């Protein structure tokens, strides 16, 4: 069966990992996401921008103890997309069995 109907924004290892983390918490800093995903700074930065452009997350940049800090939160659109994605893979797995 084709895996195409799944949301292409979420069907990526790092973006899906980020969304799975953000759906479970209220707010997360860039460094926390970096630690939990084990990604590189550059890659995480790029994937966060894609999620932000899709309207799935909100990114707030500020300064914390004189260092730049990026805080991310999931949006309602992001939660809906994530739930749709999970439903999609469940359907696929059910059909596989």
């Amino acid at each position, binding site marked *: 069966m084709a895996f195409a109907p799944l949301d292409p924004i979420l069907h990526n290892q790092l973006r899906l990992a980020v969304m799975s*983390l953000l759906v479970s918490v209220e707010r997360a800093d860039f460094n926390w996401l970096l630690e939990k995903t084990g990604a590189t700074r550059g890659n995480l930065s790029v994937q966060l921008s894609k999620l932000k452009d899709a309207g799935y997350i909100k990114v707030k940049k500020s300064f914390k103890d004189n260092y730049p800090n990026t805080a991310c939160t999931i949006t309602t659109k992001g939660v809906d997309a994530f739930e749709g994605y999970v439903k999609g893979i469940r359907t696929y797995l059910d059909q596989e069995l």
Partner: protein
Amino acid sequence: METELTPSQSLQLIQDMVQQAKQSFQKSNFYFLLWGVLFALAGVVDHLLQRAGVQMHWVIWPAMGVIGGLVSGIHGAREGKRQGVMTWMDRVQMWLWGSYTITLVLLIVAAVSWGRDPNPFVLLLTGLPTFVTGALIRFRPLMFGGVLFWMIGLLSLFVLREYSSLVFAFALVAGYLIPGILLKQHEDGLRPA
């Protein structure tokens, strides 16, 4: 380059990340130990000052409250920065204990203005957030601590006022300090440094 995922890999990844996020809430043993020590001490000191005939014996309570508030605030801010994440559990606990503090202050003002000893009411109220926090973090000793606050609070209504501060100190040891020590062992064991 983007990594393609199979559906089962996707599901596994989601489960792993959700599990990781679940383990990220702030440790709360510090607050139970801090407030347990401060107010158990306040109870004993208040009792001794009363026996010594000191008029302003009650000053120890707001003094400990201010110290505890400052230390808690600084610790909370530092932990929040270090942790880099705010979970729903952290948020619920923040609002629970925040609203408890407001109710506590109002209750003390009300009790004092009625000429009543506030200690039994404070203990009865403290049972609620202690029990709920224990239930939220699934830690039975803390739930038991909450029940002890309710029981000792009820019993302290029938204790002579001169011993009220000592009973309060005992309740803090039983309801905060002992569960706090057990919680520290539990939390340290869960997430070794």
